């Protein structure tokens, strides 16, 4: 009884499932309570229907809020041609996804040839999420990622050369070879990293969003309307940091979008076996922000949701939680034999390859010709090849770099009394020099 009482206070935010083109879902009958809300930038006020349902497994009756899609869709014309994009936009999206796929495939090749080492996590299959969101961002918007971050960096604009060099550990990498696969940073493109630890990036993104809001509202800088996007996985949604940040972001109405790349697996643990409520999007309204579920294998749908969420954040209306249902075609990392996932699950998602879907779409709707797409693929092949050559030709970092940047003083701990790096003293690698 206590559970149903607690749950029956419905927040003013609303969750819904935007799958344009799918049959509309009706709110499930019953009790009507009529708070009004504006959802995701819609100009239509819609009513929240209180939905009462009984969960027999928990012997509790509780309410949840679902907006009636019909009210929302009334403003979105659903004619297919409107959904789209222009020719250029289509090609841009395609190019970005092809870059992502080719780059990741090349990473795998380089890894097995021994040029790259360590723990490398590839993004194959999830390109629609990265492209759909990041291509709608501005250059000064922030992106915070996870260890599966090569493609987020690439989509944001970090040159492929820099990313590949970083993977090889070379001095020309985006972090000078200090970070490696899991730590891609870029000041120029506002990529706040690559985090090896799950969930560590979410508070960092929340802080960045707060800084933007502060500049706008306290320091009265009208141009400070950068949006922060935090990407993370389904496993992270059981971690404390996620919930702490949802709370803070909603409390302070931060310009941030929490994007869950739900690929259903956390190494070998299925999302459904680890999570009491697998619908992650429902956790947004619990904290006071809209939660949206979108098909993460369809770049157009992702883009649609992304545009709304970004506009919402930029206007100052606060955070959004977006759950993208997606899938990784490869194992968790290159060292993962990927034995646990069933072949039919893999086949199901392979058939929904985002790149193939977009390609089919573009061609069927005469937005691009085969020739255009082939030209793009060729161009990307050259870019990726060039990045590998560049990375191979680049030098390894100087030994002195090992001691740099431990503290704000770039030289860190290892400075001798004469002001020189201790590691430049003879005998450093032999072990006799003091450090």
């Amino acid at each position, binding site marked *: 009884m206590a559970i149903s009482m607690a749950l029956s206070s419905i927040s003013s935010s609303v969750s819904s499932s935007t799958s344009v083109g799918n049959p509309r879902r009706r709110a499930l009958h019953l009790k009507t309570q009529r708070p009004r809300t504006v959802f995701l930038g819609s100009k239509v006020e819609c009513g929240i229907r209180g939905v009462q349902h009984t969960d027999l497994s928990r012997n509790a009756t509780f309410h949840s809020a679902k907006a009636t899609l019909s009210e929302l869709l009334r403003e979105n014309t659903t004619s297919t041609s409107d959904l789209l994009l222009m020719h250029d936009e289509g090609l841009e999206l395609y190019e970005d996804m092809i870059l992502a796929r080719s780059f990741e495939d090349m990473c795998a090749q380089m890894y097995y040839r021994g040029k790259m080492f*360590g723990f490398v996590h590839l993004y194959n299959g999830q390109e629609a999420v990265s492209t759909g969101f990041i291509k709608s961002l501005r250059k000064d918007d922030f992106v915070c990622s996870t260890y599966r971050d090569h493609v987020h960096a690439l989509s944001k604009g970090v040159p492929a050369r820099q990313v590949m060099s970083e993977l090889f550990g070379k001095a020309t990498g985006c972090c000078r070879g200090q970070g490696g696969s*899991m730590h891609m940073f870029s000041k120029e493109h506002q990529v706040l990293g690559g985090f090896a630890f799950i969930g560590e990036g979410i508070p960092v993104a929340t802080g960045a969003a707060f800084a933007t809001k502060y500049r706008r509202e306290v320091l009265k800088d009208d141009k400070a309307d950068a949006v922060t996007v935090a990407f993370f996985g389904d496993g992270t949604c059981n971690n*404390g940091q996620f919930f702490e940040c949802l709370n803070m972001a909603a409390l302070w109405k931060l310009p941030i979008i929490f994007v869950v790349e739900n690929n259903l697996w956390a190494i*070998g643990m299925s999302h459904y076996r680890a999570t009491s409520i697998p619908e992650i999007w429902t956790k947004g309204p619990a904290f006071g922000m809209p939660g949206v579920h979108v098909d993460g294998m369809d770049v157009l749908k992702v883009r649609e949701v992304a545009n709304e969420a970004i506009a919402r954040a930029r206007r100052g209306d606060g955070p959004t939680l977006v759950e993208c249902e997606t899938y990784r075609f490869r194992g968790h990392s290159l060292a993962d034999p990927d034995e646990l996932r069933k072949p039919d699950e893999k086949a199901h998602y392979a058939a929904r390859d985002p790149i193939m879907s977009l390609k089919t779409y573009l061609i069927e709707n005469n937005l691009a010709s085969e020739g255009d797409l082939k030209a793009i693929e060729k161009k990307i092949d050259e870019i990726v090849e060039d990045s590998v050559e560049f990375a191979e030709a680049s030098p390894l970092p100087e030994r002195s770099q*090992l001691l740099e940047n431990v503290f704000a003083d770039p030289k*860190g701990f290892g400075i001798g009394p004469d002001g020189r790096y201790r590691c430049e003293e003879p005998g450093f*690698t032999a*072990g*006799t020099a003091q450090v």
Partner: protein
Amino acid sequence: MVCNTCLFSVWQSCMMKACRMRKLNLFYGIRVRAKSWSYVFGEDVGFGGVFRCTTGLADTFGKHRVFNTPLCEQGIVGFGIGLAAMGNRAVAEIQFADYIFPAFDQIVNEAAKFRYRSGNLFNCGGLTIRTPYGAVGHGALYHSQSPEAYFCHVPGLKVVIPRSPTQAKGLLLAAIRDPNPVIFFEPKWLYRLSVEDVPEGDYTLPLSQAEVIREGGDITLVGWGAQLAIMEEACVEASKEGISCELIDLRTLLPWDKEIVEASVNKTGRLLVSHEAPITGGFGAEIAASITERCFLRLESPVARVCGLDTPFPLVFEPFYMPTKNKILDAIKASVNF
């Protein structure tokens, strides 16, 4: 907690060659069978774990006793403390020692202090946290850390680190049966590398007792975990130059066996400590300070520490960061020729 050795069934097969990871599996069988209220849990332990330490356990003992947890280290350890406080044996796995920090609060503030602050009404002695630690060659910043020093600063915890499969089995069984919370760091470098004949059956090795693995008279070397293999190589090289080294494996870092080290230093007059963790504030500092207190007049040269550099664990520079055989050898010579 009563420890019923008669409940353990002894494996029927004869001694078999087992690599480290399989050894861990053998011991687990013994441990988990013993009490129907022992549990093994952590991230991905169900299918065997990322290092295959728990392969087959879920099939043998059931998913109600060997299960996966969601990805929340703080929750995993806290939950383990609760289980242990209710009289169970909880073996929590933290997938990499680098991930133990969200759980640091629970370990330091709860696990270590439970018995103390409840006046012995409750305790979480049944908790054992096992976690792979240390460099592995390609782990970089977040898969190679050695956080043992942070935990050695916490009264109420025990910290145990084995150097080989045989040691690991005995020490882990002892750790689980010990009526105090224990953190068991497993050198991940050795998961694949270390191959040994491990006795089947049940045996424990004593905690808080160091072991002299090589006798010598000129200098005492103290280390633990994978670093001992490197130190042993250095000892062999040093012996070619006429320096005879005594090598001690601490095995338990907290509480550590001061007597054996003191006795050894009283014999040799020189001490060198080596560990992978950064030198400043590493556990070598504690050993150096304690031995200097106890053996000041006997020491012929300052206590040498050959450890990792004071930087975050690097990516490409791992060979320069690590306390390699050459660095140790140089330090041995410097100490002997002081």
